């Protein structure tokens, strides 16, 4: 490969030791990378004064899997299963983002039935992801029961998606040009039954269990307030941004998959605290259910796959973003005309949100740090990629 830089890069190392000021009364606490309530392999270097947090330095990279470099060696259809493994709690949303990016460069038109199926699976996935966010968040705050209940509903969603895709978690269902396969009417009916049951029975159960709980409210209200100005400046998105009161939803702003036809609301918080971010997720599940119901009514028969070109010449660059459960999932794709991308950059919402931990957790008790992480809902597959 023709390059101008020297082949072996000179060591460009700047090792920063843990700056421990021994004269002060501050204590350094290292949370993670193996810690039961860090939602993965996150390390937090917290400087505390008594019980109060003075400063936090999140240390990430414990799950860096070279996705971006690796994708330069893979052809476009081969990358799709790897995008599943970015945000593994919301595999469909990732596949969709990547598929949309490649379709945009190829100029492919996706058939309407595939659009509907994409919307249904995407919103089912959003519910599943928010369920985990809610369950682990509740467990971090000490409520194990809610966690078990969430898994029960998640297993129902997984069963539904497994039936059409064959896999339990990393579905590999949305493909470039459409979706993997068609679904039966019976499956659609069962999705409907699940959604109805979820809205009428399960979601109120969670609210009775957790939302109204005074202990929960006391631990979350007014904690880690993120102002709308900070949220925008730091690039927050998704429930974190909306929890601060900024009604920005990419499904409304930049509609994809025909989602502009659906009628749904964008729930926003008022105070931007932990409770608001939690509540936005809970309300979003309802909106997702609403979207699924409309899609089930509107779905039409037809092909689920666009005719693909014989030779893939992906040229040019694009940045496609979708509203994932965690926030703005973006795929910056540079194609050089071959069947492999020249550069693929994954904009992961959790990566951006983790920057906020030092911003919003100053002055909190160290026990609240757990609530802060839970409310940001990071997934380390996409933080580190």
């Amino acid at each position, binding site marked *: 490969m023709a390059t101008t830089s020297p082949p072996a890069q000179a060591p460009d190392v700047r090792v920063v030791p843990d700056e421990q000021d021994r004269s002060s009364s501050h204590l350094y606490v290292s949370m993670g*990378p*193996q*810690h*039961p309530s860090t939602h*993965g*392999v996150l390390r937090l270097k917290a400087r505390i004064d008594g019980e109060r947090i003075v400063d936090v330095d999140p240390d990430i*990279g*414990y*799950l*860096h*899997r*070279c996705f971006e*470099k*690796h994708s330069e060696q893979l052809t476009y259809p081969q990358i799709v*299963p*790897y995008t599943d*493994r970015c945000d*593994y*709690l919301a595999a469909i949303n990732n596949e969709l983002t990547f598929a949309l990016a490649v379709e945009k460069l190829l100029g492919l038109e996706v058939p309407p039935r595939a659009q509907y199926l994409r919307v249904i699976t995407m919103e089912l996935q959003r519910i599943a992801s928010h369920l*985990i966010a809610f369950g682990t968040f509740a467990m971090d705050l000490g409520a194990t029961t809610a*966690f*078990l*209940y969430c*898994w*029960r509903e*998640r*297993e129902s969603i997984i069963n539904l998606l497994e039936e059409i895709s064959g896999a*339990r*978690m*990393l579905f590999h269902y949305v493909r470039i040009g459409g979706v993997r396969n068609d679904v039966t009417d019976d499956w659609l009916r069962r999705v409907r039954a699940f959604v109805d049951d979820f809205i009428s029975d399960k979601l109120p159960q969670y609210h009775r269990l957790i939302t109204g709980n005074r202990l929960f409210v006391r631990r979350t209200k007014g904690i880690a307030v993120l102002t709308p100005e900070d949220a925008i400046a730091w690039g927050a998105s998704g429930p974190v941004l909306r929890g601060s009161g900024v009604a920005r939803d990419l499904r409304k702003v930049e509609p994809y998959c025909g989602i502009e036809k659906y009628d749904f609301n964008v729930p926003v918080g008022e105070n931007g605290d932990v409770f608001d971010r939690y509540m936005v997720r809970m309300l979003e599940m309802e909106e997702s259910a609403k979207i699924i119901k409309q899609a089930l009514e509107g779905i039409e028969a037809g092909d689920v796959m666009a005719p693909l070109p014989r030779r893939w010449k992906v040229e040019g660059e694009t940045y496609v973003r979708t509203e994932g459960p965690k926030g703005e999932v973006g795929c910056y794709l540079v194609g050089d005309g071959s069947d492999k991308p020249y550069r693929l950059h994954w904009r992961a919402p959790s990566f951006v949100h983790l920057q906020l931990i030092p911003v919003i957790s100053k002055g909190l008790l160290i026990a609240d740090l757990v609530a802060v992480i839970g409310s940001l809902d990071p997934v*380390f*597959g996409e933080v580190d990629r």
Partner: protein
Amino acid sequence: MGVNPVVHSGDPEINAAGHPGVLTTSLRKVLNWSRKASLWYMTFGIACCAIEMMATGASRYDFDRFGMIFRASPRQSDLMIVSGTVNEKLAERIVNLYDQMAEPRYVIAMGACATNGGPYHGLYNVVNGVHEIIPVDVYVPGCPPRPEALLHGVLQLHEKILNEGLPVRA
């Protein structure tokens, strides 16, 4: 594997080949059985497989049926389920955690990445399987393995534990 199936006793007669002795073999069985029946595992989730591990521990598959409950501390756990890709940055932490576990300790490499690097095999930051850092007892391939596959791996580990000899301290 590693642990010699030699009966621990100071008595040379009992230790002689073909004379395992009634008392010690029974002790061995009882010990192994009790070890097997209460494998406490460390909550050590790394990547996608961790979600399936959580699913296995949650309501539908229920690890508790095997006497397995999660412990947040390595010092209290017998089993480490390495569930996810191990990379260079995490490697030394895993060795640290493994060293902190009390013996007898077991490691299940869950998923393709922990088994062999998996789909990320050979990339610049990926350790090709956790067995390059710490010894592994049971491998559970899959990407991620179904909870049933993990349970099957645990059952295999049970069998392995049941056939273990008493450890001999030098």
